[in-house]
């Protein structure tokens, strides 16, 4: 099956998922559930990775920019920009694609092979609306918070790294953090995050929803979901950066 076949089937699934829900109350309760499942459970991994990467970025900046021509506060500035513009929105999203994407596609995939999705269909319930849409919405709502948190924690990690490097004072780092700051950068990063959240959840749902066969195929589907959504994120990142920063 060619890419056009997948694209068409994907578009139909998304269209069906965002039809008017059979029951508003049930739908929104599921959205809340998913926020809890997708968001809160990812908090730990996001925080840990962010603080360490922030520290490493600052350390690298401090070691590689030791020159009389570059002011000390450049370490803070570089760290902040790296984290806000790319690390938090893009790299954390790719990490979430691995964690959230595989769990979504195996959850929906195992419902498919055990005929739970057919059972909903037979009852006259729209399974796409009940299974796919809440996950997509939840991630689009909660990921911006996760990423904002990642930015804050990453910059804090950078402060620890800067101090550890001994190359500059904490005050200098903080001064760097505050220099040449544009609010637009945050907006840009969060906008990307929302797009990436859509990609992760919808693509992973797609792979799970159309599984055929048994548990081995569910495993394959979740691998494919992670690979495809990671590649799509990186690709979308290129396009969005082109469009929004130039």
């Amino acid at each position, binding site marked *: 099956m060619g890419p056009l076949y997948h694209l068409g089937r994907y578009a139909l699934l998304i269209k069906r998922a965002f039809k008017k829900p*059979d*029951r508003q109350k*049930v739908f929104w309760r599921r959205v809340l559930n998913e926020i809890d499942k997708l968001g809160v459970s990812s908090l730990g991994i996001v925080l840990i990775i962010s603080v360490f990467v922030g520290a490493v970025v600052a350390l690298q900046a401090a070691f590689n920019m030791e020159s009389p021509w570059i002011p000390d506060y450049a370490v803070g500035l570089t760290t902040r920009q790296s984290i806000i513009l790319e690390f938090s929105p893009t790299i954390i999203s790719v990490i979430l694609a691995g964690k959230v994407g595989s769990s979504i596609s195996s959850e929906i995939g195992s*419902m498919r092979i*055990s*005929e*739970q999705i*057919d*059972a909903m*269909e*037979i*009852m*006259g*319930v*729209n399974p796409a609306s009940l299974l796919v849409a809440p996950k997509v919405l939840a991630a689009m709502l909660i990921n911006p918070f996760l990423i904002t948190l990642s930015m804050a924690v990453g910059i804090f990690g950078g402060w620890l790294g800067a101090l550890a490097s001994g190359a500059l004072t904490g005050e200098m780092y903080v001064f760097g953090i505050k220099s040449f700051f544009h609010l637009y950068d945050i907006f840009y990063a969060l906008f990307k995050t929302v797009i990436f959240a859509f990609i992760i959840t919808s693509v992973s749902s797609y792979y799970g929803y159309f599984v055929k066969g048994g548990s081995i195929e569910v495993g394959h589907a979740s691998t494919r979901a992670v690979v495809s959504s990671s590649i799509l994120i990186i690709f979308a990142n290129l396009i969005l950066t082109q469009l929004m920063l130039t």
Partner: protein
Amino acid sequence: MIKAENISKSFQGTNVLNDVSATFKKGQNNLIIGQSGSGKTVMMKCIVGLLEVDKGNIFYDDRNFNKMSFKQRKELRREIGMLFQGGALFDSMNVEENVMFPLTMFTKWTYKERQDRVNFCLERVNLNNVNHLYPDELSGGMQKRVAIARAISMNPKYLFCDEPNSGLDPRTSVMIDELIDELTRDFEMTTIINTHDMNSVLSMGDQIIFINKGEIAWKGNKDEILTTNNKTINDFVYVTEMAKRLKG
């Protein structure tokens, strides 16, 4: 009443159903029998629309299913209950939530009213005090019974059962058969059952169709099946040692 008219279905060139016609009557058990792989599940899935037929028409009391819009089909499905071969219980929900699910989606009842209905259905299938267990905490027979309770929760006019007693011990199978039989008569449902269990065939076969090589090879009822001279059906019925000896 459900009528299938000249339905055909093939997968990648292999014909599974070939011009099959049958009428399934109201208030009785309509059995579809045949060897494993003969197309019983495919036939049932074509009738409920989980598979699209290549050719032919399906009528639910004179409503042509194939001519219905997506929305009309959705409406019709609220009159259908289906028991899947594997149970298909929602494993993220407990027993009560499973049976309540269709009620929550489609009725405006209060929680109390829905709960009463759930308990009524669970009592019908002889299950008590399991409301808060999850499907993986139940035995196979209990799962089947919960699935039946879920299938009848909306008081369906049409009930589909795909091998309701496969993988169960004889006593539990008989119990499930009796249960389906009782429900069919009490609620005047049009019930279609796939099976290859000869005991079910003989105890509940008000109407039987035998599928062989994609075609209906024989039609009749539970008495006729023992007296017929049709060779294909005899080969199917008298395949076990026990049956051969009884025939003598």
